[in-house]
């Protein structure tokens, strides 16, 4: 019952459910929601990789700092970027979904099959 099961478990669960929602969703926004869940799960997984037992946040408010057991700051920096990129993708995707609704009249993915074979 250590922390690993909690964080790894929930992040992998989120990724699995995210993909599943994206694959079986009927509405375009449901698919984007699935991808968003997958990204949240992935970010959670990356941060939980960086965790060090007993570590504190990498912010040293007191100076001179005494070297203490600190959590790995690099994954946090990467996730910061990943979150912003995730939202940028989401915004573009939603713009396309809105235009599809305007042009196709419906948001049902099954109707979005004009380009095939």
């Amino acid at each position, binding site marked *: 019952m*250590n*922390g*690993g*099961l909690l*964080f*790894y*478990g929930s992040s*992998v*669960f989120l*990724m*699995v459910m995210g*993909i*599943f929602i994206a*694959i*079986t969703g009927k509405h375009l926004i449901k698919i984007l929601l699935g991808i968003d869940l997958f990204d949240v799960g992935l970010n959670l*997984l990356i941060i*939980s*990789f960086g*965790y*060090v*037992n007993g570590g504190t*946040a*990498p*912010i*040293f*408010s*007191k*100076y001179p*700092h005494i*070297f203490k057991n*600190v959590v*790995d*700051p*690099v994954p*946090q*920096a*990467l996730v*910061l*970027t990943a*979150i*912003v*990129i995730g*939202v*940028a*993708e989401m*915004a*573009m995707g*939603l*713009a*396309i979904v*809105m*235009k599809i609704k*305007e042009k196709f009249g419906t948001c049902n993915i099954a109707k979005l099959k004009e380009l095939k074979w």
Partner: protein
Amino acid sequence: MIRKIIAFLVVFYFGYILYSFIAVNFPFGERPLKGVAAHYVDKGIEEEGATNIVTSIVTLYRGFDTLGEVTVLFLAATGLGLLLAGMKEEEKEKPEPTLIMETTTRYLFPLVLLFGTYIFIHGHLTPGGGFPAGVVIATGYFMMFIAQKQFKPSEYLLSATESFAGTLYVIMGLLGLALAFSFLANVMPLGVPNTVFSAGIIPVIYIIIGFKVGSEMTGILAHLKEA
């Protein structure tokens, strides 16, 4: 129905592989800091002066990434604008915002902006930096979009601040290149750690990012509102 089951089985198997791999190879919490991370933690403050190591990584050590990230946001804003330009707005009647909402948002709006500016000015000291600050400002505007009937920030102002902040960011980078022969180098004095005017160009960058992200996100919300 069958497709759902097959999809679930494959995705579940994907999750199972992922979980079994990471549980075996990267046990939770037992990974000591090594390599680059150890360097950042040890020398972070001497080299960059910011007490918040994550901020110094985001803005300086990996400043080029953040420049790319800002570009991604800028890209999303432009792409959204391009796609949604000319969408006709149906005149569904919008519910009238109640008096309480209108007045509270009018008073709350400056506080939210103040909170946002506080975050990006203290980016290098306290957690949270340019990005959340910009988003907080944007949510302030978002609140105004919902609550006020005819609140409409000027389109030109937003794209002007956005471009201006962007060019300023690149100029900061070029400054680093000119003075220290390396793009985005920390050319300003580091000052005393843990004080507001410290850690060289980090606060400047975070201020720029704050403005940029704020105006961009507001622009995105404005486009979405009209479309």
